[in-house]
């Protein structure tokens, strides 16, 4: 059963058709590379799946059952986690605090419930170790590399036992070495049966980790095929419109 299935999803912002009739499915453990030019609708698609926007029309199914998300929390409860393009991370807080943001662990102190820092640091440390990242739970995110920030964002997603992880340009602003780190994180997720939707402009990254590639052009899905059956040239053509459909 597909982890995620979209049927005829459209999203309009007034006169702008950000998404038109997109149908797509992602299997558990599958990595799908979502590509397209600036403004093609990639982030919009991610946000519709994540419950930030309600689709104007169309339906979303999670593990076969129809989903209706009114807010991000609904999607989170359904096992969808997002690693946002503009990383939703607080620079002024520690890595552990970010991992647990909005779902902090607490303990009882007399009549009060207080934050359980020790527990949060330990759990965050375990997650970073699982991700083979050198991120230290106590460090402020402000002082971290792009790769480490990604690890923080992904650790957040792991914490909630997500079934589907949406990543919006995780490799856009980081160094080559860190890109390799993030791609390894994605492989880790996929090996553990998590479906990953990877939005990226970087062809090599997508071809390295994605099982399938989907291309959006002006809000329409113009390709959805195995990455082994395609080529960077074909995808480029699809993105620009030189190739109409594949």
């Amino acid at each position, binding site marked *: 059963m597909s982890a995620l299935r979209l049927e005829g999803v459209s999203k309009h912002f007034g006169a702008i058709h950000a998404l038109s009739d997109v149908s797509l499915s992602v299997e558990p453990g599958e990595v799908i590379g979502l590509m397209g030019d600036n403004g093609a609708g990639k982030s919009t698609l991610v946000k519709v799946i994540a419950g930030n926007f309600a689709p104007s029309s169309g339906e979303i199914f999670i593990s076969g059952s129809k989903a209706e998300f009114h807010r991000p929390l609904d999607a989170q409860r359904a096992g969808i986690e997002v690693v*946002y393009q503009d990383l939703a991370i607080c*620079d*002024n807080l520690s890595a552990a605090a970010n991992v647990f943001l909005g779902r902090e662990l607490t303990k009882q102190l007399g009549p009060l419930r207080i934050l359980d820092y020790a527990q949060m640091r330990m759990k965050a440390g375990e997650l970073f170790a699982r991700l083979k990242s050198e991120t230290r739970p106590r460090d402020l995110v402000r002082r971290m590399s792009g790769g480490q920030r990604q690890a923080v964002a992904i650790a957040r997603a792991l914490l909630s036992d997500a079934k589907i992880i949406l990543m919006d340009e995780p490799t856009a602003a980081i160094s080559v070495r860190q890109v390799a780190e993030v791609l390894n994180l994605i492989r880790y997720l996929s090996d553990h049966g998590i479906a990953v939707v990877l939005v990226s402009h970087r062809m090599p990254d997508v071809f390295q980790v994605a099982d399938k590639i989907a291309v959006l052009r002006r809000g329409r899905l113009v390709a959805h095929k195995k990455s082994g059956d395609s080529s960077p040239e074909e995808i480029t053509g699809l993105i620009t419109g030189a190739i109409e459909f594949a």
Partner: protein
Amino acid sequence: MSTANSLADVIDQSEHRGLRSRLISHQTFWVFMAAILACLALSVLTDTFATERNLFNVSRNFAFVGIIALGMTAVIASGGIDLSVGSTVVLSSMTVAVLMSAGMPFWIGVPAALAVAILVGVVNGVLIAYAGMPSFVVTLGMLSVARSLAMVLSNNKMIYQFGPDHALLLALGGGSTMGLPNPLIALVVLAAITGFLFRWTRWGQHLFAMGGNENAAKLTGIPVRQLKVSVYVFSALTAGITGVLEVGWLGGVTTNLGQGMELSVIAAAVIGGANLAGGIGTAFGALVGALLIEVIRNSLILLGISTFWQGAFVGSFIVIAVAFDRFRSIRQSG
């Protein structure tokens, strides 16, 4: 020397430097040192500073600015600003004064004053969080509205008779317990509570998250709107408490009470390390900032410098504190 040895040395050194530079780069530490130095210098330079009477006065004034600076630090750390605190002080004072002078007991007058302050905070918070208006604009408007309401309430007359519980009200703000002025005790208790809230509760964690990256806070499901309202209520409540205490200390209320106080309070918070860009601030810093402000103000008086200079000092302090902050973030990113 073997390589392993020298590597260990380097690590060792860098950790030492880390610890020392962390302390030195800590603004609160320097402000605290400055305040202590100023106190020492004043004790030596004047024979009036270290008198019991003067210290009593300094500590009470310090307490009033400090209590509100706690609330202001919460607001600033959440990414906003509250310009209405000085007017909330007078509105709260006037509420308790008018009610009690009309014969109401203490136990009605004080809760009513705090309730009015909370209402001010709710209005501020709702306009900022739900109507999406800038905190600067909303609280600037409230600065004018709240003071005007205090004038309407009192018909712009001074009130110095507080009915049957007159003595109780005066004792609350003007008296002392175990040799310490009551407002100072209130400050210490409120600072401890605020420090605890900031560090150990989800409310504090969420407040700092919102100030650091509001969008991220929203995406993680933190109810940022309710949180914002609570922050402005907290700030208004500290102003309300101060208002009640100040009536007792002054023994009377006029409508110019708390005028321009927002500036001292913002200066105290910012000097204490609260970052106007949001996400940073501590309760202890607010305390230390308020201490420095009050010591400087007192020193101007004791050294015979015209009080007309006070505004220049407080204003410059805000700018200097922010400039330091800019400097540090430039050095960090460079």
